[in-house]
């Protein structure tokens, strides 16, 4: 395999991985703080993508306004699911199965609604993505570049926020011990809302990048959230940043494996990896092996 091919695969992998990473970070923020398997994160993704697409193609919005639409739409859907579904269940201390199924149900309802409204076929953005950049023989499309830049910016913002701001430190506290956090006076409800808003915005950003890259259909959200789940488990549940690493790795995996194997086995590989981690390294790559506290 020549260096050029290798570099191209690497870059493609990182570009795809950047979208995965952004979406997964959003998921990780929600999961880490609220311990909810927020399947509906996938529909936040989908709706944001469709809003962005419609804003540009049907309403002829300028780009920044379309992006705003996508971001606001994402945050709106995310916050709504928290207020309408997760919060009441949290307040009545519901079984995690109930929360999971509710999330799944919301996803199903909204996905099929989207299919009815926007149609089942794939829609693409006829945008100006003719722009491509070439670095030493390796091709990078405009969207891919945008993705890479975004993930770098987001990762840096994340690191700074979580190490130095009160917001970040509070979230870390909540995620490591939710009960204690409540006891010492942290307004859990407010933080939950913020985390859903922020996590959903990240999903939206990922969705919009993806729409610009390959278009959208009603099912994209499901793959997105499944990848996010795998990325979070692989990267490490305790550490939000693990999701970024997981997302990038999955992007690289996708890129390199499509070179070696037919792309039809990709999903299976991703899930074999998930299973392997669940069984042998559930704390993820960045996680610390926590001795199981007494179960009783």
């Amino acid at each position, binding site marked *: 395999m020549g260096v050029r091919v290798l570099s191209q695969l690497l870059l493609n992998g990182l570009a795809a991985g950047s979208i995965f990473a952004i979406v997964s970070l959003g998921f990780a923020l929600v999961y880490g703080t609220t*311990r909810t*398997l927020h399947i509906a994160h996938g529909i936040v993704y989908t709706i944001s993508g469709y809003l962005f697409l419609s804003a540009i193609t049907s309403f002829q919005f300028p780009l920044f306004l379309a992006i705003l639409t996508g971001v606001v739409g994402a945050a709106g859907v995310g916050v709504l699911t928290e207020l309408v*579904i997760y919060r*009441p*269940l949290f307040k009545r*201390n*519901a*079984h*995690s*199965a*109930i929360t*999971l*199924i*509710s999330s*799944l*149900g*919301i*996803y*199903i*309802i909204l996905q*099929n*609604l989207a*299919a*009815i409204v926007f149609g*089942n076929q794939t829609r693409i953005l006829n945008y100006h993505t003719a722009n491509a950049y070439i670095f030493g023989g390796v091709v990078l499309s405009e969207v891919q570049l945008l993705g890479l830049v975004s993930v770098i910016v987001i990762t840096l913002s994340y690191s700074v926020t979580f190490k130095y701001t009160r917001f970040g430190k509070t979230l870390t506290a909540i995620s490591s011990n939710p009960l204690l956090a409540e006891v010492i006076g942290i307004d859990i409800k407010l933080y939950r809302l913020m985390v859903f808003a922020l996590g959903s915005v990240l999903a939206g950003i990922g969705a919009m990048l993806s729409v610009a890259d390959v278009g959208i259909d009603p099912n994209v959200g499901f793959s997105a959230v*499944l990848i996010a*789940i795998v990325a979070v*488990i692989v990267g490490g549940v305790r550490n939000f940043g693990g999701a970024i690493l997981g997302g990038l790795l999955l992007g690289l995996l996708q890129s390199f494996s499509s070179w070696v194997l037919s792309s*039809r*086995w990709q*999903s*299976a590989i991703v*899930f*074999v990896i*998930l*299973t392997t981690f*669940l*069984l042998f390294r*559930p704390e993820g790559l960045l996680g610390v092996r926590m001795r199981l506290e007494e*179960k*009783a």
Partner: protein
Amino acid sequence: MNYVFHLLTLISIYLLLALSLNILVGYTGLLSMCHAAFLGIGAYISAILTLKLGLNVVAAFALATLSTASVSLLVSFPTVRLKGDYFVLSTFAFQIIVFEILFNWTSLTGGPYGLRGIPRVSIFGQLVDTPAKYFVFSGVVSGLSILLIIVLLKAPFGRVLRAVRDDEIAAEAMGKNVSLVKVKSFAIAAACAGLAGALLAHYITYVSATSFTLQDSIFLLSIVLVGGAGNLRGPIVGTVLLLLIPELLLFLGMPDTVAPNVRRMIYGLLLVGFVFFRPQGIAGEYRFEKT
């Protein structure tokens, strides 16, 4: 009239599926997202044994059932000790992996095209080739299996399942080998699903991986959760209700393009509605309460 028997046949098969999933969800407290995968495994194994190896149908049914149960051990052994959420994710992963294998391993499973021309069942020389005849056949097979399930759940075994469901740690402290109980429960449910798969395969005489997806597992879960988990009535109500909804939609003349989406939206609404407001479903008993 044929149509009625067709519906009744499907009900008999789905009843077996629902009651077996109920063993996991309503009696053992295991949320399984891979029941359709077991259905598919049973269907394909029976199809392949009869179609490609010429095995007689009764043997194929038996082998399909046993094999599916054996495969379930592969899943349950390593995962039953994982905590709740992670166990569910493992079943998710298993479902997807199985679908990918069934859909992509073309040489074995026919890939996206599936397998056609699956031989019909013949009993005492009689070919079971009409919906009416098949209804009698599947009714008997399914009915006998369901009877066995009932016996099992009323026995001390059923009680230990519920103990594990209600409080694993207390169950351990009372001398119950919780992991083994879960593995057994999973195997029984998988065996029933495998049998249901064989019944389906030889009725439709065609199997395709697209019938055994994650969405189908979720559909089965909906039957159990909407109808109600933890007793026998719930899954029966759920099966009849959720199988009749598409028929109702057809009746109301929903346009073909949106019918599947509308149908799934209704399932989604029912699912959320019940799980959120009435977790014991229409006629079930288990409320997913935390100790």
